[in-house]
C-alpha cells in the first residue's frame, strides 16, 4: 500500500501548459499516474498533448473529471492563489511544487486549506511517489523501486540521493514524500510518520531533516511515543554556518534550537538510528530490521 496517493488518485495539473507543468505532466503520465485534467485560465477547451482536457478553473475540472488530487506548477507569484483555488474547489489533496512563495502568503493559505479539511503537501517540495503506482510531483520515477520503506524528507535532491541508495541496494519504497523546505508547510513529519505507521505495507521509515525549526524534534517525540516501526534519520547541515540572524525576534522565537546537533540528539533519544552520511541508510536499516 501507500499513503496519500495510490491508483485511485485522479490528478489535475495546475499550470499544465507552462514550462514545468507540461514537462512533469508528461513524466507523470508516462509513470502511470491518472492525470485527468489540466488547468490554465484562458486555455479551457483545449487538450494537452491531444489527450488531457484543459479547463479554465479547478472547479470546472473537478466538476467534469472528478479530480481528487491537484499538483501545482505555477509561478511563485500566483502559487498561493492556485492553492486557494484547489482547496476552494474541494480537492482533498493538494501538492504544491512551486518554490519561492512568500511566507506571508502561506500564513493566509494554511488556515483556508485546514478549514476545508484539505491536505496540502509543500510548497517548495518535490511531491510524492508511490513506486509502481502513482507519482505526483517531480521525484524522478526511475530512481525508485516498489518496496516497503517509507521515506519522508524536507529536502529535494538529497531525498533522491537517499532513494538512490535504497533502490540500488535492493530496498524498495512504499511511498516517498518530500514535505518541502519552506518555513511554513502544509504537512509535517508527524503527519507522514503517522501515515507510515498505519500503513500495513510499510515496514520501516527513513526521515530526512535539516537544520532550522523544531519540526524534527517534535517528530522525534512522536516517534518515541507512537511509532513502533524502525526509523532511520538524517539531518543535513551539520557544518552549515549558523543561519543569518533574523533580528532579535528570530533569536527570541527559536532560542538555541534548530541546530543539527540538537536534532540528531533528539533523534538518538527517541531511538531513531542516526545516519552520519547518506550512505549509512542501508546499513542502518539492515541493523534495525
Amino acid at each position, binding site marked *: 500500500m501507500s499513503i496519500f496517493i495510490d491508483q485511485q488518485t485522479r490528478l489535475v495539473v495546475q499550470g499544465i501548459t507552462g514550462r514545468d507543468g507540461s514537462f512533469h505532466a508528461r513524466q507523470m503520465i508516462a509513470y502511470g499516474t491518472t492525470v485527468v485534467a489540466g488547468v490554465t485560465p484562458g486555455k479551457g477547451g483545449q487538450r494537452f498533448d491531444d489527450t488531457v482536457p484543459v479547463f479554465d478553473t479547478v472547479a470546472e475540472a473537478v466538476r467534469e473529471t472528478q479530480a481528487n488530487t491537484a499538483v501545482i506548477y505555477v509561478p511563485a507569484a500566483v502559487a498561493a492563489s492556485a492553492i486557494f483555488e484547489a482547496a476552494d474547489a474541494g480537492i482533498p489533496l493538494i501538492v504544491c511544487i512551486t518554490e519561492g512563495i512568500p511566507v506571508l502568503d502561506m500564513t493566509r493559505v494554511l488556515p483556508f486549506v485546514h478549514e476545508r479539511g484539505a491536505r496540502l503537501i509543500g510548497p517548495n517540495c518535490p511531491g510524492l511517489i508511490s513506486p509502481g503506482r502513482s507519482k505526483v510531483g517531480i521525484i524522478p520515477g526511475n530512481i525508485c523501486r516498489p518496496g516497503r520503506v517509507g521515506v519522508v524528507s524536507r529536502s529535494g535532491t538529497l531525498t533522491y540521493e537517499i532513494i538512490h541508495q535504497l533502490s540500488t541496494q535492493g530496498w524498495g519504497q512504499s511511498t516517498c514524500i518530500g514535505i518541502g523546505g519552506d518555513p511554513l508547510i502544509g504537512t509535517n513529519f508527524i503527519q507522514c510518520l503517522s501515515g507510515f505507521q498505519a500503513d500495513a505495507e510499510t515496514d520501516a521509515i527513513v526521515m530526512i531533516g535539516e537544520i532550522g525549526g523544531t519540526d524534527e524534534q517534535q517528530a522525534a517525540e512522536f516517534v518515541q511515543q507512537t511509532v513502533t516501526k524502525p526509523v532511520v534519520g538524517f539531518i543535513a547541515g551539520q557544518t552549515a554556518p549558523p543561519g543569518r540572524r*533574523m533580528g532579535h525576534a528570530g533569536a527570541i522565537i527559536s532560542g538555541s534550537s534548530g541546530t543539527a546537533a540538537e536534532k540528531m540528539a533528539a533523534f538518538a533519544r527517541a531511538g531513531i538510528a542516526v545516519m552520519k552520511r547518506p550512505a549509512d541508510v542501508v546499513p542502518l536499516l539492515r541493523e534495525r530490521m
Partner: protein
Amino acid sequence: MNLHEYQARDILRQRGIPVPPGEVATTPDQVRAIATRFGDRVVVKAQVHAGGRGKAGGVKLAATPAEAAEHASKILGMTIKGLTVRHVLVTPAADIASESYLGIIVDRAAQRPVVMVSAAGGIDIEEVAARTPERIHRLAVDPRYGLLGHQALGLALTLYRDIAQARAAADIMQRLYAACYAIGASLIEINPLVTTRDGAVTALDAKIVIDDNELERHPEIAALRDSGAEAPSEVAARAAGLTFIKLDGTVGCCVNGAGLAMATMDLVKYYGGQPADFLDIGGRSNPQKVVSALKIITADPSVRAILFNIFGGITRCDDVANGIVQATREFRLTVPLVIRLTGTNEELAVKILTQAGFSALTDMDEAVKQSVAQAAA
C-alpha cells in the same frame, strides 16, 4: 533583504508610526550641516547590515556639530563584521524615559505572525528572553483577522500603565502589523520603542528584513537594496540566481538543492576536509549558471579544490557538464575539479565531460573523498 535603519524609519513614518527626526549622510561635512540644523546634541549611527554596531564603535553621541563631523569621519569607512560603513544616520539625542522592545516575525511552529513585546527593551533583549522569558509577551496573530484592537492594547498595557501611552503603542503595533503584509517583511522590529520625557511613544531604532520572495511584487522596496553594503560575491551570486554563502574552508562546493548541498558539506567534513562555501545552483540549471558559480568559487583564493555534486532531477546533468566546459573556455581553472553527476541525462553529461578531458564520478562518497584529498595535496 535587509533594509538600513534609515530606510526602515522612512517606511514606518510613511505608515503613520512616530519616528524621531533624523537625516542620512555620506560625508562628515553633511553630518556637520545636519547637526547644526538640529542645534542640539546628536547621535551619529553607522548604517550597516550588522548587529552590535554600538559595541563596534559605530554609534556615537556628539555635543557639537564639530564633534559630530569628527565622529562621522571615523565611522564612515569603518568596517563592522566585514561590512564597510557608507552611510550614517544623524538624529537629535533623544531624551528617553523608557525603552521597550516590539517585534513581529512569522513563527514557523505557530504558522502565524507573532507579535513580541517587552518592557525590558534595548540591546540586551536577547539576554532578557533567555534568562527571564516571562518578561517577553507574545501573541500569535490570526492572519484572517489581523492584529485586533484589543489584542494590541492588551500587549501595550504590559508596556505602559498610562492609557494614552498604551493606546499610542497599540496603534503602532497595528500599523506595524499592517506594514508587514504591505511591504512583505519577514521581520520588523522597533528596538527600542521609547517614551520621551514629554510622554510621547516613538520608534527610536527600527530593523526591517524583507522576504526575498516578495521583492518581485514590491519593486519600490526592491529598489531600496544597497548592493554596496553587501559582500561582492553575494551580489554576484544573487545576480546569477544562485544561493551562495562564503565559508572558511578549502573545498569549493557546487551542488543542486539546499539539502544536498548541506549534506555534501557535511560529508566533506566527515572525510576530513573543510567546505569553502555553501552554493546551491537550484533546480532548472542552465550552463550559464554553472559558469557564474565557477567564477564565484574561483574568486576565493582559499579554494584548493572544487567539488561538483549534482543529482539530476529537474536539473539536467548535461546542462551542468556544458557549463563546466564553457567556463574552462572562458577562464583557466587553477585548482583541480572533482565532478559527481547522476540522474537526468547522466550519460550525455559524461560524454560531454570526457570529450573535454574531464572525468566524472557517480558515487557521492567517492567524489567527496577525492576532493578532500586534492584540497589537501
